[in-house]
């Protein structure tokens, strides 16, 4: 999880100046139309952690129509994942556990 200069969690997605932004690896922000596969994967991993945060989608604040489309779709997906992160952890921890333990031992 990226920590901002002020010490708080950095938002994965934020809306600023009517534009949608995503957080980069370096802790800066880029506009959402630059999102590629690698970025999406990074955002997905962030969504599975606690402390994940994004600005809620707001048509008023986000005037750029293209950004609206991207922000809304990816934002929803990441939020959904974040809400299901405990389910995901439980499910992956228990994945094939029996077999794993048998062969590990």
């Amino acid at each position, binding site marked *: 999880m990226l920590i901002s200069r002020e010490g708080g969690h950095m938002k994965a997605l934020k809306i600023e100046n009517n534009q949608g932004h995503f957080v980069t690896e370096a802790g800066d922000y880029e506009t959402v139309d630059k999102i590629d*596969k690698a970025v999406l994967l990074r955002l997905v991993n962030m969504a599975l952690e606690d402390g994940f945060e994004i600005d809620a989608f707001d048509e008023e604040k986000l005037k750029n129509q293209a950004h609206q489309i991207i922000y809304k779709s990816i934002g929803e997906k990441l939020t959904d994942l974040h809400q*299901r992160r405990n389910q995901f952890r439980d499910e992956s921890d228990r994945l094939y556990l029996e077999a794993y333990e048998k062969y590990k031992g």
Partner: protein
Amino acid sequence: MKKIDLHMHTVPTISDAYFSFSLEKLIEYVKSAELDAIAITNHDIFDLQQFNEIVEKLECAVFPGIEINLEKCHVLIISENENLDDFQLKTQAVSEKIKAIGDSITVEELINIFGDLNNYLVIPHYEKRPAISGDTLESIWDFISAGEVDSPKKFIRMAKDETEITPVIFSDVRISEEMRKFPTRQTFIDCGDISLRSLKFSLRDRNKVALSKSEGNSLFQVFDDGQNLSTGLNIVLGARSSGKTVTLNQINKDCENVKYIPQFALVQRDDSNYEKEFNADVARKKSVFSDKHLAPFKAVLDDVLNVDLGINKRKVEDYLATLLKLADEAEKLDAFSKVTLFNESQFEIGVDKVLNDLISSVRQLIENIEYREIIDKHVDIKSLKAMACELIELLWSKAYERKKKGLVNDIAKDVKSKLQLRTSATQVKDVDLYKVLIEHKKASRFNEIAQLLQNEKVIFEESVQGFKVICKQRAFEGASEIKNVSGQRVAFSDAYREYSNPFFYLAALKGNESLTPSEFYKYFACIEYEILNRDGFKVSGGERSEFRLLQEIKDAQNYDYLLIDEPESSFDNLFLKGEVNQILKEISRTMPVVIVTHNSSVGASINADYIVYTSKEIDGKNIVYRRYAGHPSDRELRSIDGKTINNFQVTLNSLEAGEDAYFERRGTYESIKN
């Protein structure tokens, strides 16, 4: 010590094969076996007239008796030799009740007929078929003086066991005209005069009965000429053609339930055939073991089989590409594509496996019977039930939500497809990111598990007398090994290139249509089932025979005697001196073992309990075969007819080719050593 045989037949009945009784043979038997007392015990009958004739002719004590079919087992009832008319009346009552094969009387009937059983010697078949059942034994327990057995092995086992009744061993012989040999199963008993009362008194003390006259239970009579053997370990020595194997054959014939390992029995005459047989047996065990070991992996593989990371990757790419493209077209969106539903994503509605598992775990806690006490100690069943209810309700509501979302998804999909027809705008290709992620996890967990399976590791190990049965898992060393396992004519070389990444390897296997997916689980790790020698190497042809010899000897535990003819003819000295001697010694603690040998590794190193030296001698014009026997520490070995022979001399002659040769060899070894 008095020698008694209280179980013999003189009248053929429905329970016997026909024979014609010979009083002369009985007289001869009593004389040659030097019996002090006998009992006449025919099946469910007492013939007073014949009994009187027998008593008249015999010099030893003769007791009247009967062998009764009691609740499907056989019991001897022996009376004092008095009030014979009364005994005949009682036995007649038995005869009247038992007329056909399979008839028997009950304990109650027995007591009704004979009254107080304390007036008789009551001896059931104990470790002898048909043996007395637990219930019957219990109901006549107070009257039983001893239990009959049919071998020295069983006699000794019972004699040593303080919780057992006193054992007796009798001939159970049919005294017939055709008898060529006399039985050797009799019991020695330490009692004063020979009366029923005195016998009964002595039988109360297990230390008062023995298999031999003066050597307690360490010797028993094996042949009717009076030849004894140790109830422990015997070795039979002697020159070629002096009667060693004949001796073993005779024991095999005269005794029952004998394990006989003849000379060369275990040498592989047809090596390739034998190896095939041996390997087939190993393969069968391996396949059972391998399937058991791989079963959990198979379950994982069956699930992962449906995971296609390539498709998932493409789906994510398509999603992103279409999303970005649509965004790019944002300015040009028409009325149709501007509809919110046009780019609405689907609700994700995976089944909640975790919740399902949790519910079944709680249910197990509630329903388990075996560990009920522990569960109850820690958790209140009421709370468990409440928890189960809450979880199930949650599951229902989630299922309900899922159903609703599924409905919404259907509607959205329908609307979207209709809008799609009317607009040129790009439609975002949706992706279920949760599913993609879980499947990714599945693949990586599968890789971990498969790699664990490929770690070389012993998964099962069992020691069998110095040999080791070992089951190992390891990675396959090449495509050809996998091909062998598959038993198919398919080349695995392409797939094998991906072998180090099990998930990719699985994809490659899937790509080969001539392979059956249900067999894939066998192609990931090699399961080896091997029999190794003491050095940890695979057994050689010779060692396979060693393994079998040890198995055969081990199997002897199910028999009453073990005979081995010249084990040295098939095996090397170190093996014989080590494992074989050890296991033979061990087994001889519970049963008579007889080994024919002229090998010093066996003969001299095994510390036998008894030596039998066979000798072919010329007596005037006749050839006489003699057996000299004695303890290893005896100066002289003695034959039945009273001749003696120097123990040291014959042992050295048999095992070391004579004293001179022995010292010469010693000299040679000393010089090599120096």
